C-alpha cells in the first residue's frame, strides 16, 4: 500500500468532488426540501437542513393517488415488457434460423421501424386509439409501447440468437425434441442474458415514458407515474416541499433498482444506444 498522496491525486479528488456537487446538488435540494415545512422553506436559506424534519409531506403524497399511479405504471410496464419479450423472442428465433424467401425483406422492414421518431407516430396512434374505443384506458398504452419497442428488441435478439450454436438444436432433435421443445428448452434459456438486458432496457424506457400517456389518457385514475407527478405539480404548484417529496418518492424505484443491480442496469440502458 502506498500512503504517499501525490499532487495529481489531489487534483483528481478535487475535480471529482466538484462534479459531485454539480450532479448531486439538485438531489440534495430535492430530498431535504421534502422534509421541510412550507413556511421554513420560505423563511430560511434553501441550503439549511430542516430544523424539525417533518414526514407530513411524504405522508401527504402517499395518502394521495400516488399508489394508483404507481400501480398503473407497474401494470403497463410489466404487461408491455412481457409482450415485447415474447413476441420478439419468437420472431427473432425465426429470423435467425429459418431460411425463407422474404426473411431479409421482412427483417429489413421491421428494423426500419427503429428509425422513425416516436413523436411522428403520435397523431395516427391517437386517432387509431379513438377509433378502437380504447382512449383513456391502460390498454391504449400497451399497444403502442409494444409496437414501438419491438423493432429494437428483435434486432438485438436476432443478433444474439445467431450466436447460439446450431449443433445444440441438432442434437436435441436427435434426442426427440420437437420445435416447441427446442425453442422453450434450449433457445430461451440460452438467450437469457439477452432477454434480461432487453427487459431492463424496455422497462427503464417505458417507466419514464410521458408523451403517449399525455395524449392517450385523460382521467387521473388511468395515468402512470410521470403524468401523475406532472398533474400534482400543476395542482400543488405552491407547495414546494410536497412536490419535492413526491419527486423523491417517484425517483426511488429506479434508484433502488440501480443500487441493487448497477452493472445490469447500465448494460440494459446502454443496449439501446449501442445498437441503435
Amino acid at each position: 500500500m502506498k500512503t504517499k498522496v501525490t499532487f495529481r491525486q489531489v487534483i483528481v479528488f478535487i475535480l471529482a468532488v466538484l462534479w459531485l456537487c454539480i450532479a448531486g446538488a439538485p438531489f440534495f435540494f430535492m430530498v431535504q426540501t421534502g422534509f421541510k415545512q412550507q413556511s421554513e422553506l420560505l423563511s430560511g436559506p434553501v441550503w439549511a437542513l430542516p430544523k424539525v424534519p417533518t414526514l407530513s409531506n411524504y405522508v401527504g403524497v402517499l395518502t394521495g393517488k400516488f399508489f394508483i399511479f404507481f400501480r398503473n405504471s407497474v401494470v403497463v410496464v410489466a404487461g408491455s415488457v412481457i409482450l415485447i419479450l415474447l413476441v420478439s423472442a419468437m420472431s427473432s428465433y425465426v429470423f435467425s434460423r429459418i431460411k425463407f424467401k422474404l426473411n431479409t425483406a421482412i427483417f429489413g422492414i421491421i428494423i426500419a421501424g427503429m428509425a422513425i421518431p416516436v413523436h411522428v407516430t403520435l397523431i395516427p396512434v391517437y386517432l387509431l386509439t379513438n377509433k378502437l374505443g380504447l382512449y383513456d384506458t391502460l390498454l391504449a398504452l400497451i399497444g403502442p409501447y409494444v409496437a414501438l419497442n419491438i423493432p429494437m428488441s428483435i434486432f438485438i435478439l436476432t443478433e444474439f440468437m445467431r450466436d447460439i450454436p446450431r449443433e445444440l438444436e441438432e442434437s436435441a432433435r436427435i434426442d426427440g425434441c420437437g420445435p416447441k421443445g427446442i425453442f422453450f428448452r434450449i433457445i430461451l434459456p440460452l438467450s437469457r442474458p439477452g432477454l434480461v438486458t432487453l427487459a431492463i432496457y424496455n422497462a427503464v424506457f417505458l417507466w419514464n415514458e410521458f408523451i403517449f400517456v399525455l395524449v392517450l389518457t385523460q382521467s387521473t385514475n388511468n395515468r402512470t407515474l410521470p403524468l401523475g407527478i406532472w398533474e400534482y405539480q400543476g395542482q400543488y404548484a405552491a407547495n414546494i416541499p410536497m412536490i419535492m417529496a413526491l419527486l423523491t418518492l417517484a425517483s426511488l424505484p429506479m434508484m433502488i433498482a440501480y443500487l441493487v443491480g448497477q452493472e445490469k442496469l447500465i448494460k440494459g440502458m446502454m443496449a439501446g444506444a449501442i445498437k441503435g
Partner: protein
Amino acid sequence: MSFLKWNGIDPVKEFIGFENWFELLKDNIFRRALGNNFIIVILSIAIQLPIGMALAVLLDSGGRKLNLFKTVYFFPMLMSSVAVGILFKYVYDPQFGIVTAFLNAVGLKRLVLNWLGEPGVALYSVIAVICWQYIPFYMIYFLAAMTSIPGELFEAAWIDGATRGQYFWQIVLPLLKGTVRTAAILSLVGSLKYFDLIYVMTEGGPVNSTELMATYMYKNAFTTFRMGYGSTVAMALFLVVMVTSILVFSITKREERG
C-alpha cells in the same frame, strides 16, 4: 393527413392540398423551432461529449476509489425527464431556487435572472438541464470503451516515457474515435426529438423561445386541435431526422473508407 384541414373530432375533413405545407414554409414559429432544435444539437455535442469524456478519464484514472462518485454521477440518468423538468423548475426559481442561492452566496447577486422566464435566456437554461441529465450517459459510455483498452498499451507508453497527457491524446483518443463518433450521432438524433423536458419546464415559451419541432407539433395537434397542420409538422420533423441521419451516416461511412 398533412393535406387535410381537420380538428380531429369532426367527421368533416376538408382536403386542402399543399396548403399546410405552404403555411409551414412561411411559419416563423416553425422556423424558430427548427433553429432551436439545431442549437440544442450543436451545444449538446459541444458540451456533453467533452465533459463526459473528462469525467470518464477522471473515473478511469481514479480507479476503484471513485466508485462511490461514479454511482452518484449516474443518478441524473435515472430520473424521468418529467421529474427532472419539474425539479429544475424549482432549482431555477428566482426566489428560492438553488441557482439563485448559490449566486447570492458567492456575491454575484446581480447575475440572478429569471432563468426560465427571459426569452433570451430560457433556451440556454434548458440546455444546461439537458446536459446535466445526459452527461452521465456519455461518461459511462466512454468509460466502458476505455476499460476495454488493454493495459499493456499504457505500460508500453509508460516505458517509452510518455506522459499521461500524451498517452491520452495519442493513444486513448484515437482508439476511441469510433466510440466518439457513435456518441455524437446518438446525441444528434436524440436532440432532434426532445419533448418531455422542454414541455414540462417551459411548454415552449416564453414567446416560443424554447419551442421545438416536437412541442410545436403537439400544440397544433392536441391543444389547438389542428390535426392536419400538426401532421404536417410531424412529417417535417420526420423528414429532418431522416435527412440528417442519412447525411451523417453517409459522411461517417466515407470517412471510414478513406
